[in-house]
Every structure is written in C-alpha cells, then in structure tokens.
C-alpha cells in the first residue's frame, strides 16, 4: 500500500467512525425541545412569597447556595454569578405590574432561580449539548464541555444563567472541596442541587430557609408536598406565555 492510499483509507475510516459516533446523537439529540417521559419523577419547586417576605433582608437561601456551590463573589453586578437571588417584584414579574401596584409591593424581593423549564430554550440553542434536560426535568450544565458562546444566556428569558467573565477561583470566599469549582469562560446556573438530590437530600436553599417558604418535590407524585400546595392554592409562574413551562411556582 502506498502512502497516499493509506492516508486515504485512514481518513475514510476516521470519517466513518466520526459519523457512526455522531449519528445516534443526531437522532436522539432532538429531545432538546420536547418533554421527556423516560423518568416518572418530575422535580419542581413551590415558593410561598408571603412566608419569604416575613423576614426582611433574609438571605439564608442565597448564602447556603453560594456556600455549597463555591459561587464566586464578584461584586460588580455586571459580572455577578448567581444561582439563586432576590429581585424586586417588578423585575421578577415585569408584565404583572400595574399602576396601582403599591409602591412598597413593587420593591418586595422575590426569590428567583433557574426554572428548570419543561421546554427549555437554553437547551434548544446550546451548540454542544453542554446544557441538557435530564429525565427528571433538571436542566443540567456541563462546565467541561461549555465553549462559552453564551447563546444559552441570550435564550433564557429569566436571566438565570451566569457567565464567568474572569477567573472565579480567586473570588471564592470559603472553598468547599466537596464541590467542583469552575473555570473562567463558562456558563453556570442552578441545578436544583442535583448532587444533594442524588444523596436523597433536599436542595440547600430549601433546607436553609428559616420560614420554610420553599417546597421541593416530585410533581409526578400526587401525594407530594408540591402537588398538595399547588392543588390547595393559586399559583403563578414567570412568563408562562413563552411556552417554556417553568417548574418553579409562586403561591399567591
């Protein structure tokens, strides 16, 4: 076999191998848009703002999340990394505002985090499947695959995604060796504490809340706390008109 022929065969074989490994992904990859029924579990969160508002200035949930996830403390709001945070009502629900909304209510802080949408636009647009939806509904993030194109940030209608504009490791107050740190140039966000759920625990924010304002559970289980709360009271979600099917509910 001469050299040219060998190179030809080698190139052909590697192209075939590449196509072979990519094909199943291409076919299976379409799941980015729709709902997956493969798992019976469907994790969701129900937040009771009236309980949350009882404690002025409380940030227990935010602090707990920052601590267990090695979230860097960039204080410049333009470079902030946040998985869960408080936002005034008028920003959390901009379309709900009306001119008779009491001035003090407009400013009331609401707890925001990734909505773990059933139909997540971020997953749809990600060019590398670095963000994807698990069978149990959790929208995950692979910090090792993310190329930092920030398309997911443009796609997310909730501002739930943060980008590491510079090295986060030098901005972590107290490093928790039990959780990975991130590198600069990747996107990150709330993962409903998938690492804790795997151990049978509740998300850190839910556990930390002194008023028990956040409930976490399985929507597929009719006897779960989240289902009981949603059936007992009227609830709203952020921007439901966009068809993303957010799975974080706010009780009225």
């Amino acid at each position, binding site marked *: 076999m001469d050299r040219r022929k060998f190179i030809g065969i080698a190139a052909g074989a590697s192209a075939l191998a590449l196509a072979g490994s990519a094909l199943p992904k291409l076919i299976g990859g379409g799941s980015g848009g729709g709902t997956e029924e493969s798992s019976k579990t469907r994790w969701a969160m129900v937040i009771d703002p009236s309980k949350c508002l009882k404690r002025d200035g409380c940030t227990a949930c935010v602090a707990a999340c920052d601590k267990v996830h090695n979230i860097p403390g960039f204080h410049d709001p*333009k470079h902030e990394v946040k998985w869960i945070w408080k936002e005034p009502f008028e920003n959390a629900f901009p379309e709900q505002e009306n001119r008779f909304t009491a001035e003090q209510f407009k400013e009331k802080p609401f707890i925001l985090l990734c909505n773990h949408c059933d139909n997540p636009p971020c997953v749809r647009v990600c060019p590398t499947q670095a963000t994807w939806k698990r069978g149990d509904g959790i929208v995950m993030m692979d910090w090792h695959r993310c190329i930092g*194109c920030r398309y997911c940030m443009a796609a997310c209608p909730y501002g739930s995604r943060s980008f590491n504009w*510079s090295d986060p490791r030098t901005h972590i107050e107290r490093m928790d060796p039990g959780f990975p740190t991130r590198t600069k140039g990747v996107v990150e966000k709330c993962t409903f504490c998938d690492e804790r759920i795997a151990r049978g625990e509740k998300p850190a924010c839910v556990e930390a809340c002194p008023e028990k304002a956040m409930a976490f559970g399985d929507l597929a289980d009719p006897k779960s706390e989240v289902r009981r709360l949603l059936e007992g009271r009227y609830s709203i979600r952020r921007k439901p008109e966009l068809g993303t099917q957010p799975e974080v509910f706010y009780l009225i």
Partner: protein
Amino acid sequence: MFMFEKAVVGSKKYWAWVGCLCAVIAMGFLCYVLQLREGLGITGMSRDVSWGLYIAQFTFFVGVAASAVMVVLPYYLHDYKAFGKITILGEFLAVSAVTMCMLFIFVDMGQPMRVMNVMLHPTLHSMMFWDMVSLSGYLGLNALISLIMLSAERKGVAPPAWIRPVIILSIPWAVSIHTVTAFLYNGLPGRAFWLTAILAPRFLASAFAAGPALLILLAMVIRKVTWFNAGKEAIQKLALIVTYAMIINVFFILMEVFTALYSGIPEDAAHLRFLYTGLGGQSPLVPWMWTSSALAAVSLVLLIVPRYRHNEKILAVTCVAVFLSLWIDKGIGLIIGGFVPSPLAKVTSYVPTLPEITIIAAIWALGALMITVFYKIALSVRERLPEKAMAH
C-alpha cells in the same frame, strides 16, 4: 497599460498600507492574548448584555459576505456581461468577509480551545450548529470558485464545466447564510426585539445594500490605485441594486417601528425606545441610531434621484453613507438593542472597552489585508492578459 506590479507590488505605498494593517493586527493580537489570560471580563459585556460588538460585527459581515450573490446572480443567471470582470471581486470579498465572521465568533468564545466541541457533539436543534455549517460551506464554495476561475484565467482557458453548478449552488447558499444568521436571534422566546419574522428578510435587504455599496467603493479605489477599471456600467448597475435594497431595507425597518409602536405592546416598544429615545435614564445609542437614520434618509435621496446616482463623485459619498448607516444599524444597534432592556426589564449600559475595540479593529484589518492580497493576485493574473480579452 502600465504594469500592475510597478504600480502596486513593491511600491512604498503598497507596503506602507500592508504594514499599517499588520501593525493593527499585531496590536489586536496582543489584546486577544490579554483577553485569553484575563477572560471576557476585559470587554464591556456583562451578565445582561452578554453579546456585544463582536457578535454584532459578525452579523454585519455575514451580510457583506452574502452580498457577493448580487454580482454572481446577474452574471451567471441573467448573463449580464458587465459584471463579468467583477464577479471575482465579489467572491474574494465573500471569502474575506466570512473569514472575518468566523474570527468574530472565535474571539467571542469564553473557551476557544473547546471550539471543536461544536463538531464533536453536532446538535441539530441548535441554530449555531447550522450557522457553522452554512458559513463554512459558503467559505469553501467561494474559495473553490475563485481558485478555479482565477487559475483558468491565468492559463487563458475556459473554466471547467463542473464549476458552473457549483457557482449556481453558491447563490441560494448566500441567502442561507444570512437566513440562518437571522434564525440565531429570532427563535429566542424572551427577546422581543428579535422575535419578528421579518428579521431574515431585513438582514438580506441590508446586506444587499451594504455589500454592493462596499463593492462600488472597492472598485473605485482599485481604479485609482491600479490599471483595473470595473467599468461605469457595472458600477451603475451595482448602484441600482444598492438603491432597491436600501429602499426595501428602510421599508422593513419602518414596518418594525409601526408594529411595535402602534400595537403598543410594552416589551416590543421598549427596545426601540432604548435605541431611539433612551430608556431608564440611559441613552448611549441614541446619537448613533439617529445618525444611522439621517444617513439612510440622505442616501435614499442621493440614490433615487438619477442625476445624483449617475454622478460618480456623489455616488462614492452615497455609498459611504449607506455603508455607515447600515453598519450602525446592524453592527451596533440590532444586537445591543436586543439585550436592553433585559427580560427582567432592566437597563444595563454597554460600552466597548479599548482592548475590545482593538481586537475588532484587528479583524477589520485582517479582512482588509485579505482583500488587498486577493485583489492583487487577481489583478496581476489579469494584467498579463491582453486588454481586449478582458473587455468582453
């Protein structure tokens, strides 16, 4: 006919030009090394305005690349002979512009070392994957076409017959690159400014105005510094294309304004208000957007009135106005305006930093260098041919 080499190759002016471009590229490269080390935080981008001038420039130059079709189509589909001499200029412009686009995407990436992940994990539901496919395909097509056509010209033979279907394929392909680029933005549920079905048509209209305007200016510069004359007829026909495309583009923009303002839907109107009047006490783009509008209005008059369009001195000014107007509209306003206000109704200012602007300037310079070198090659191939062979 004086020799092209004498006029340009080796001349002090030529090397001064190339040297200037290389200096800008070197400065941009240094800034990129800084960005690589420090992260994208050295740019003006932020959590809320997460794409800035890099992506905006990318969008604008996809249009310039696509506009090559405006010389290729009349020549190959309608046998419009006057464009015969300049199709190669259009194709080389496309190659340079697509290369610039790819660089703008590359410098925008947080983890550029992982760029191959896009190919290792092909994702059919991501418009970015398709944009990569269409852009690299378009680059390949135009590189191949210009190579084959030029080498045929050098040998003084007719180009091989198989290249014609490739050229025909490049026509719809050009439309596809700008359509898919529009799809990057207009499939995002939370971004009202881009969520409009007219985005892709608008992209094409502005592309077919800005690209040929640039081509007219390039042809005029080439005529001044070399022996090559694209011909009055070709330039006038390009000017007519610019005229129609600019009218359609302005018409499309006005349709957007009507829909957003008359419907009165707050989140649709908010982006326009941020761009044209300011919002939440911030109005950084207002002077830019009104400059763009004024340039568009003036250029429309100068294009539509035949007396002005036929005067090449005025036409040159008009083409600069068209190019600037569309560059502001698409290369700044369209992307930044889409992010402000944010889906949480917040107004965040974005001001590009010096390193960011230097990197952008370097990519512009690289594009200009590519154009210079490509056109020099094309013209030095041609100067050896007898003039009457070129005259059609």
